[in-house]
């Protein structure tokens, strides 16, 4: 915290909290530490996001969690562009949890999600950089006794008349004494950093093993705990015998917490050995002994009955009942685990009047408040330090703060610093999944073969119902995250009706990279493909006709098709599929090329992707996120399924919850559209189109229409047998 600034965390939070109240600029740049004395004479801290040291260091304080998406580089780039500093001097520092670091659009919480980091911080960080630049210029102008307009900033130096120059570091102390400009002006002219493929600032630490993830946190005297968890959701400990566990060398304590029975040891291995020796009798509520096969039947039944309206244009049911020919299909996708490479974990050091948490969180304010509740402290007595996240994908923005609460409960009981680690099996079986979905669509075509009516019923759990966000995010019974991507489809369909059933059950569900779009894009883009083939129209041309009023969607569609060589002939057994989807303010189209061998083995060979995410910060990061979203979505399309039998999750590790590996990775080409539109997200929008692109390619190659994910060899063979 004190690196390069001479300011302690305590001072920082104290002064930040003071400034969080009234002193906001019109553009809402929190001042943070404005007090030169508190900042130390050696530094310039014009707002909550920036410190400039006399050693010329420029530290950008980042209020977003780094989980692979590159925010420790893209957000500093936004500020540095306006500051006109030397990029080589820029370093990043994760922000503490404080009001000035709350999400710029989501209300009073610090959170990283919804692919919003760049788009929500663009203005605030640009202005923060511009304000600091003006102060540095004013400081230099004052020293030289010239007007500020006679000076300019460039590459970490203020340049004045007659070749005068002073570095930012030399100006830091005097700039710190100046008033913050109320309306800083953004620079005009060419961009120095934005739009350039700058290298990530966090890469060196990530390749030499020095990057600290939550699981790496260690302090002297720290113990390590693992928790034996109930076999079913909602299960509780009835009784347990700890004697076997306590006899294991290195096991220190065994105790019941809400999540199960915690075994605390002087390391992971003793705790694990202790856990194996536990004798536990669980209480399993009847309602938790559910199976996904029975749920699927229930969902199918529900899909045949009217749901709550999410979209109604024209009169789809009436048009359909009068139609000569109707097309009907059921689509389904399973529960999915986030399975970040770093299993969930949390370090807690709980004292009588304070609590230190170090973990990889995407949901800092919610987690901190939950910890305070459990610890019996005020939220401001809890310090949450965000480490690197070994993947997040939504799992570390948990509405129930499960992995934090269980660690605070253990810490409260043992009164020593402790780190709770989940094994891969714990991580995969203890809950929070992308919901299972069942969709039924009926459609008919007009005389040109285009969709005339589309009646779509969606069945699946709401991820928001029952959380503190329900009142804000569920309107008239419709959780928007259940229908996004379907209820707001850009396709021109005159009679469109979308209905929603939100059944409840014991399975904990959560946002999973791309949220509702992860299922709606599959359904929409595959069924539209079916209609195109039924109409005898090329699926790419079919989409073009229906997107005439959506130029950005159209542009990515055409770009992907062109770059993929859409109409070029392919060898026998190969096929191309296309899909396009808008999500999180960005537009993405993908063309997948697949092959199928004589044994029915599907291989994805190549994916061509085009994205329009508006104005860009770092084009290489955008490409990396497209590669990432495609791989993540492909794992789900080909392998991903969490199933339950008698309430028990049937998968546990990477042998039965498989991910794409090197040998199955297609060649990916990503193209970024040159755009002046407002910035969109990039972390999630690459995920939705890949599953439908692959399913559509499979159909093109074989005539097999697989309407259920994952696309297994068995489903392909069934589809071929029928088809």
């Amino acid at each position, binding site marked *: 915290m004190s690196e390069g600034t001479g300011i302690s965390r305590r001072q920082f939070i104290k002064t930040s909290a003071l400034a969080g109240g009234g002193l906001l600029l019109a553009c809402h740049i929190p001042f943070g530490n404005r007090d030169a004395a508190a900042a130390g004479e050696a530094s310039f801290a014009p707002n909550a996001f920036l410190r400039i040291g006399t050693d010329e260091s420029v530290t950008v304080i980042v209020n977003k969690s*780094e*989980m*692979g*998406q*590159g925010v420790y580089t893209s957000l500093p780039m936004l500020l540095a562009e306006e500051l006109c500093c030397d990029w080589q001097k820029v370093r990043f520092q994760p922000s503490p949890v404080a009001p000035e670091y709350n999400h710029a659009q989501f209300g009073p919480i610090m959170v990283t999600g919804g692919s919003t980091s760049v788009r929500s911080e663009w203005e605030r960080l640009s202005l923060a950089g511009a304000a600091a630049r003006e102060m540095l210029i004013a400081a230099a102008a004052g020293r030289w006794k010239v007007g500020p307009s006679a000076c300019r900033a460039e590459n970490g130096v203020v340049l004045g008349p007659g070749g005068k120059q002073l570095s930012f570091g030399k100006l830091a102390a005097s700039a710190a004494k100046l008033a913050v400009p109320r309306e800083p002006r953004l620079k005009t002219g060419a961009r120095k950093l934005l739009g350039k*493929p700058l*290298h*990530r600032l*966090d*890469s*060196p630490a*990530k*390749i*030499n*093993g*020095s*990057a*600290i*993830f939550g*699981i*790496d946190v*260690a302090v002297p005297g720290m113990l*390590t705990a693992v928790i034996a968890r109930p076999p079913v959701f909602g299960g509780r400990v009835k009784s347990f015998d700890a004697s076997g566990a306590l006899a294991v*060398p290195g096991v220190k304590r065994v105790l019941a917490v809400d999540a199960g029975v915690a075994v605390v040891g002087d*390391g*992971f*291995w003793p705790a694990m050995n202790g856990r194996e020796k536990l004798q536990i009798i669980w209480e399993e509520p009847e309602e938790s002994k559910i199976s996904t096969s029975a749920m699927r039947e229930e969902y199918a039944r529900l899909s045949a009955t009217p749901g709550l309206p999410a979209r109604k244009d024209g009169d789809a049911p009436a048009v359909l009942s009068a139609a000569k020919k109707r097309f009907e299909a059921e689509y389904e996708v399973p529960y999915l685990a986030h*399975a*970040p*490479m*770093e*299993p969930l974990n949390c370090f807690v050091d709980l004292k009588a009047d304070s609590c230190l948490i170090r973990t990889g969180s995407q949901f800092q304010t919610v987690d901190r408040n939950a910890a305070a509740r459990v610890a019996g402290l005020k939220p401001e007595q809890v310090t949450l330090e965000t480490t*690197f996240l*070994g*993947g*997040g*994908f939504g799992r570390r923005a948990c509405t129930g703060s499960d992995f934090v609460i269980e660690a605070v409960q253990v810490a409260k009981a043992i009164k020593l610093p402790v780190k709770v*680690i989940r*094994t*891969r099996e714990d991580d995969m079986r203890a809950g929070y999944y992308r919901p299972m979905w069942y969709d039924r669509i009926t459609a008919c075509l007009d005389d040109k073969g285009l969709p005339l009516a589309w009646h779509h019923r969606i069945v699946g759990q709401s991820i928001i119902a029952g959380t503190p966000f329900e009142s804000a995010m569920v309107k008239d019974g419709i959780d928007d995250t259940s229908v996004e991507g379907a209820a707001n489809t850009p396709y021109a369909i005159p009679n469109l009706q979308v209905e929603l059933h939100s059944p409840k059950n014991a399975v904990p569900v959560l946002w999973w990279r791309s949220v509702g779009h992860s299922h709606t894009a599959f359904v929409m883009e595959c069924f539209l493909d079916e209609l195109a083939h039924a109409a005898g129209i090329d699926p790419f041309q079919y989409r073009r006709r229906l997107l005439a009023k959506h130029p950005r969607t159209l542009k990515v569609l055409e770009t992907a098709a062109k770059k993929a060589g859409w109409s070029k002939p392919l060898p026998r057994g190969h096929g191309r599929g296309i899909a396009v989807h808008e999500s999180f303010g960005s537009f993405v189209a993908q063309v997948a090329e697949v092959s199928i061998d004589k044994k029915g083995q599907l291989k994805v060979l190549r994916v061509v992707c085009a994205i329009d995410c508006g104005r860009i910060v770092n084009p*290489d990061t955008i*490409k*990396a996120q497209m*590669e*990432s*979203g495609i*791989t*993540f979505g492909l*794992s789900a399309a080909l392998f991903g399924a969490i199933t339950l039998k008698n309430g028990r999750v049937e998968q546990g*590790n*990477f*042998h039965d919850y498989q*991910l*794409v*590996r*090197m*040998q199955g*990775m297609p*060649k*990916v080409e990503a193209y970024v559209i040159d755009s002046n539109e407002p910035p969109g997200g990039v972390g999630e929008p690459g995920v939705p189109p890949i599953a439908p692109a692959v399913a559509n390619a499979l159909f093109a190659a074989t005539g097999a229409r697989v309407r259920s994910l994952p696309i297994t060899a068995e489903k392909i063979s069934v589809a071929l047998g029928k088809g």
Partner: protein
Amino acid sequence: MVVFHVNGKERRVDVTPDTPLLWVLREKLGLAGSKFGCGEGLCGACTVHVDGQPLRSCVTPVGDVRGKKVMTIEGIPENHPVKKAWLAQEVSQCGYCQPGQIMSAVALLKKKPKPTDADIDSAMSGNLCRCGTYGRIRRAIHAVGAGASTKGGKKP
């Protein structure tokens, strides 16, 4: 007491010999660069070298490496061509799996200085990456094979 060498230094640890090497490195020797991902040798995040061979340290009892030479990510020099190629190709995303990926890649390149795609598939398919950096890993390995990284590498 188990005695073995880690990154060129003799280390003595007082643990039961069945303790996986991974947890000895991470918790007893302060070498947290090797990661826990699955505990079953399925993901490769814990990959280290034992007498030059890549090994999954999460399923290797420390008793099995008595007297042997262990190399972890912390033992790979900063100017190693593989690390330089990783930076030049901007491979890392969340970064959690990368120490294991790099250890597998270093072992591959030692055995086959100019690996083919098939060599890369076979040597690297035991290392999972949830962020999807496989394409860049492949490029980085080929770049080392072609000697590109020694000339400063290519911009991604």
